[in-house]
């Protein structure tokens, strides 16, 4: 067993874990943060995407011990002060989800995109979420949801 210390959604977490434990299982099983989902076993689907030190990673391909000393953001940490994040608002307003299983990972991938590129065009969005599979929506409304969020975040910045 290996001792790790990391911040998850702003809270410091200490744990003794097996070296082989995957980060996604640490989040889900040890911390009870079950919003991060497992949709495949080959790192293709992106349902497990979280933000690790500012970068979107597939947490099924990261060991918990590799996350030692890092800062992790999951879907549970996205809303603040009882308000949904503009991405969550966008997915809601634009019907960017149906069954909801891919949604947390999709939103975290979009989160990274908007951090890096606040004004993405359609092509940028398509490329950014290419590693995240959705079987329900055909992506059309995920794209408009992310555009909605980009607009909303732009307006928030402008008002700041």
């Amino acid at each position: 067993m290996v001792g790790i210390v990391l911040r998850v959604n702003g809270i410091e977490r200490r744990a003794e874990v097996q070296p082989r434990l995957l980060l996604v299982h640490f989040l889900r099983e040890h911390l009870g943060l079950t919003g991060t989902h497992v949709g495949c076993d080959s790192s293709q689907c992106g349902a497990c995407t979280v933000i690790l030190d500012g970068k979107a990673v597939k947490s099924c391909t990261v060991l918990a011990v590799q996350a030692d000393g890092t800062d992790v953001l999951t879907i549970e940490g996205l809303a603040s002060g009882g308000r949904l994040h503009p991405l969550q608002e966008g997915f809601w307003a634009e019907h960017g989800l149906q069954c909801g299983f891919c949604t947390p990972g999709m939103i975290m991938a979009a989160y990274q995109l908007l951090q890096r590129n606040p004004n993405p065009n359609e092509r940028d969005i398509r490329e950014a979420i290419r590693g995240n599979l959705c079987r329900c929506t055909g992506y059309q409304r995920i794209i408009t949801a992310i555009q909605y969020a980009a607009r909303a975040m732009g307006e928030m910045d402008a008002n700041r």
Partner: protein
Amino acid sequence: MRTDRDLPPRPLGEGRGEGFRERQSPSGIGARLKRREDPRLLSGRGTYVDDIRLPDMLYLKVLRSPYAHARIARIDTSQAQSLPGVVTVLTGREARPLTPPLPVAAVIPDLKVPEHYALPIEKVCYAGEAVAAVVASDSYIAADALACIEVEYEPLPAIVDLEQALQPQAPLVHEEFGTNVAYRFQLGEVDDTFGGADVVVRQRMENQRLIPNSMEPRGIVAYYREALREATRSEPMRVLSGVEGASSPAEPMARGPASLVIWLSTQGPHLVRTQLASMLNIPEHQIQVIAPEVGGAFGAKLNIYGEELLAIVLARQLGRPIKWIEERSEHMAATSHGRGQVAYLEAGVKRDGTITALRLRIIADMGAYHHVLTPVAPFQTATLITGCYTIPALAVEITGVFTSKTPTDPYRGYGRAEAAYYIERAMDLVARELEMDPVAVRRRNFIRPEQFPYMNPFGHTYDSGDYERSLSRALEMLDYDRVRREQARLRQGGRYIGIGLSTYVWRAGFPSVSIPPGMQFLLGGWESATIQIAPTGAVTVRTGTSPHGQGLETTMAQIVSDCLGVPIDDIRVVHGDTEAVPYGMGTMGSRSLCNGGSAVLLAAEQLKEKAIRMAAHVFQAAREEIVYQSGRMFSKSFPERVITIQEVTRLAYHGADLPAGIAAGMEASAIFDPANFTSPFGTHICVVEVDIDTGDVKIVRYIAVDDCGRVVNPMIVEGQIQGGVAQGVGQALLEGAVYGDDGQLLTGSFLTYAMPTSTELPLLEMDRTETPTPVNPLGAKGVGEAGAIGAPPAVVNAVVDALSPFGITHLDMPLWPEKVWRAIQQARGHRQ
């Protein structure tokens, strides 16, 4: 494949990603209301099966056969058994006394039903079939234990190809039958004159196997409360014919909560409960089945699978909760696949394009076993092979075939997508043969609006439709004539544009009656609803449907809000728990809104009627005097006195002063069973450009004009069509379960199975027509499967149209660049 964003769409027209034009209304029928289920799903607070943890829970994993066909000579589990943390290891021999055969609900004469158990004893019949099971204290240990199980196989020859499976010397999947034919069925007859046809067009077509791939894999948590054992029943209660109960002792009748509680990623909790009761000799009232959040299903979560049964019987045996969660590679190999047909079509046609007769021979892939509905799909295909056309003479021959592959079962569009594909391809083949415009051939043969209800030669009745209207609208959106001219102009410059039409029709919302041969299901097509208004005015709607992404918590609330005029926020929709909702059939076959929503509407109307009679009593007025408006009632003679539904509800609960014949409380239940299927339809037009040097197909425009009758929430309907088209485009261009000759699944993960990604799908240009159905009070036709049915022929017709200068008349799906490129190369070779 590229998408429209790569190419300036100007030469072929503008207009991308447009939604429906809409009607405004705040929260009732027709409102574009944001989904009420979304906040929890968006914040990671939804509870899918894998999110459930119970104290003392154990984890199940199964070992799968690497061979498609092999005898199991020996299994050594001793090493696995001795691993710390392993609770039990089970082989087929040890599991057999615990696990009854897996259910088959299809009723087909002389159907061969192979023995199918959770774990086989003698031999495996497809790669990925489970051969042993491990239960351990955590899933990592269970995985370690699987690696320690030694299985000695004696490989046997596998049979993969459907038509080779029918050859006399083919290896047999089930030797005991002496054949790979599961059944044959003949409907109708057409002689060689084809009803006086001038020309007969013939084409062999494949409808390839698809893997459903809901993003949430299958999963179960099973919990058996052993402490509740009490009295026993001597005779098991059974509903399912053909399912023998297990040899375990008869089950106790207990007081208190149900003995067996399972959380299952399923589309039909009650169907599961009924089947389990029959299979396990547990009284049905002792079983609670809960479908928590279900992350997509697409038809593949109707069945009770072997792993799920193992989890249940082991939870019962070990007295501890057991969780089993499918991995994606397991989903690819062992969850039912969809489609899997080869069809030979012959269409007799007059010179003017009139179809005189149609003959179809369907060879349908069962895979290695039957799941619950495996053999039924071709009957759906047969009865709908007329599409939206008046075809006077029909004959369909069906051959169900066993192969050494994963069993097939429903997948979005089940049986009807195949029919639409064959007939819509046939229309283009006829057009090509007669050198007519594909639009003209379709118009020549359409069932006309005044012909509805229209019964086809197989007795299937189309409820309502206006095919010309959706076709005209789609042609107008495309500016068809102009794009045809552009196509000719661009062709001069060596660019290959294709325009593909699909004027599709299908059927949804299956009824209990008027179901054609081969379709008799174990239970009916009716659906249930209960609505309760609590004394405080809070409304709870309980539906027997079991949504898993369709947004029924929103649409059902809209129906109630519309009918009763109560605020949408006062309405909660409950589903997916056999202890919380009335018996229902669940969500499949695009039935939830048309059948389930109609039940909700009927129940709401009962409450409205009760409220009106209560108001009449309060106002000392005749019932006919009362006007109901947005949840408020008044008498025509004293309109200034108003009473609300909330107020009469309180009076109804008080119960002291009720009109004669009115009971206390405010609750109503309804069952709705339609007299017939609905027939949703539409026109999809796909414009593609084919790169003839690479075979790459790019969708330039995609127009979808759909008619699903009355629309409750246009936003949700659009989403259903967009998602369905994504799966249909996936079938046409990308997806396919591919097996090697040895029966190995070569597309066993997302690395190799080409699920459409964000960069491969077009933005749809959408509109709709609205032709209400007379078969249900809501007027809704169902929409869930529309896109998956409409899209494949539109895309394939477009690609074949693009390649017509090469003399190419047909290509089988999926239209991978290599396949397209080879066809072009071959055609060029012939011409040189």
